[in-house]
């Protein structure tokens, strides 16, 4: 349904924009109907940038985003509104997502003004009430309140309710439960599962591996703006192949390795050859990517792809 084709984001930095900084490079994955894809990465890995590019809040430097066969990366002006009818987002900080001087339900009236100006007041109120009930909130308790009078969990669920007012196909959920406490988290997670069963595609952006594992069919692991490993969740978590993924997974329950050790292990293959960041030692062909047609990831089994790194055997062979 939604597919990203080698999308990249470059920023000009420094005086007069003399330097390039690549926040995201050649990220490609697909999101199907009724599927949850979790995009996992540490801070600064570019996961939020990917989310914002999908939401067209940031321009794409190269690549394309295709929704149901239509290239939406070139959509401009008024047509963007049509795109937002199908693709919506919820962000990390519930308190910053609301304009503090307006009542929280203004997020609903904005949708009405922009998308349903013809709809009768009573019909609209019913629609809002249904959406609020769908996210397991009591309309009487949350409507007509200011954001600071509601809890983080209520605010996040209201944002999901807001998205439900539209004919939504894709929801970009950017760390939506990171700022919630444990008891509210599970409510919001279950809500996402409910949306999934209704056929919505959800991009679940998180830094929390266990949450990703809990909810998603597909996992994409991002590091320094590049996909290092991607595939069916059970394959990525069951058979982690990239050293970074292994490190991530092993560092969740117990830290028996020091960070410095892991960092040097990760840096070794890149420092060894230079040039290509993501395609150093292509496990199958062993060549570097020269053209745009080269795949950025190696397929190591069905529905399981890995980015550049050197396998332990190759490394010893090279050193010897």
């Amino acid at each position, binding site marked *: 349904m939604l597919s990203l084709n080698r999308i990249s984001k470059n920023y000009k930095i420094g005086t007069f924009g003399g330097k390039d900084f690549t926040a995201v490079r050649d990220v490609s994955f697909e999101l199907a109907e009724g599927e949850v894809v979790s995009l996992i990465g540490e801070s600064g890995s570019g996961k939020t940038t990917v989310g*914002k590019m999908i939401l067209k809040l940031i321009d794409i430097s190269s690549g394309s985003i295709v929704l149901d066969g239509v290239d939406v990366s070139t959509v401009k002006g008024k047509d963007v509104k049509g795109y937002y009818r199908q693709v919506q987002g919820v962000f990390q900080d519930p308190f910053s997502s609301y304009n503090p001087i307006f009542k929280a339900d203004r997020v609903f009236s904005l949708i009405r003004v922009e998308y349903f100006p013809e709809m009768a007041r009573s019909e609209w109120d019913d629609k809002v009430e249904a959406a609020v009930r769908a996210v397991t909130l009591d309309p009487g308790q949350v409507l007509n309140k200011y954001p600071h009078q509601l809890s983080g969990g209520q605010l996040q669920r209201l944002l999901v309710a807001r998205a439900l007012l539209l004919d939504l196909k894709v929801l970009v959920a950017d760390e939506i439960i990171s700022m919630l406490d444990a008891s509210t988290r599970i409510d919001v997670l279950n809500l996402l599962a409910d949306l999934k069963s209704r056929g919505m595609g959800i991009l679940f952006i998180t830094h929390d591996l266990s949450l990703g594992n809990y909810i998603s069919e597909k996992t994409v692991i991002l590091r320094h703006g590049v996909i290092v490993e991607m595939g069916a969740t059970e394959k990525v978590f069951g058979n982690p192949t990239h050293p970074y993924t292994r490190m991530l997974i092993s560092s969740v329950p117990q830290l028996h390795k020091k960070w410095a050790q892991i960092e040097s292990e990760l840096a070794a293959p890149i420092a060894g050859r230079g040039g290509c960041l993501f395609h150093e030692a292509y496990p199958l062909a062993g060549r570097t990517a020269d053209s745009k047609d080269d795949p950025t990831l190696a397929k190591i089994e069905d529905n399981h792809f890995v980015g550049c790194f050197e396998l332990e055997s190759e490394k010893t062979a090279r050193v010897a």
Partner: protein
Amino acid sequence: MTSVNLPSDSAGNTVTAPETQTDAVAAPSKKSQHEVLYFALRSKKFIFAVAVLGFLVLLAIFGPIIDSNDPLAQTLGVNTPPSTDPGYWFGTTTFGEDVFAQFVNGLRATFFVGLLGGGIASLIGMSIGFIAGYKGGWVDELLNMVTNVFLVIPTLALLLVISSYLQRSWPEARGVFFESIFVGVTAWPWAARAIRAQTFSLRSRDFIDLAKLSGRRGLKIIVFEIAPNMSSYLMLTFILLFGNAILIAASLDFIGLGPTSGMSLGLMMFNAVSWAALLLGTWWWFVPPGLGIMATVGALYVMNVGLDEIFNPKLREL
């Protein structure tokens, strides 16, 4: 019960806070239609400021009708202290001019310069500040450059050149109206910079992204999302520019580049000082215009604080 709950309050704050507030909010929410009015009428600061400003405005409107003396006619007794006699309510100047007539006529001109000059400056400053701060990039750089150029122009020198030029070529332009316009188009740069900085910090907030996701763009986001968030700041900008315009106009009057006829509070104070009212002890000549300017700007400031409490729900006393 309470003693048990208190220690855990910091940890459980996010959960408990909304519940405790629910009851308190229930009552005013009924009045949601007239909420702003409801809080406005409860704000003592706002009511006080409106009363003072209203009084001054009424004085400016009806004063010249009550006291029909020509403010510049030198027909009364000189240096007479205030009394209840008609024409002597605020006393007279060294030249036998009616101070009350000068005051109410000056109040008119002063309000006019403040409103028009301050209004124009606010309009330009806000437009440039909002666009530069919201758009960023090269638009920001360009507008910033223009702002900086205006900032370093010595306003008084520029006005001096323009006014003396107009004096020869277009004498009709030497009225309060054109004075206000000149003040307006030169007084905005600091406002533009201040608003740009505020806009810059607001535009990266999530609710701006959310408004974009709701299909809003550009100008609508500035007007309906960013501006309301800084409404008290914008009000303050206008108030400061209003006061500033009055003072600049007074300085222009002072160096003889103001309106060739007419009266303003600034001109009154200047005349009082230059004709040694202080030494002669004729306090009634300079106290009314001084109090007039102070009361106007002061009331606007108090009004701003009151408005902040009315429009910012977090500052409301529930």
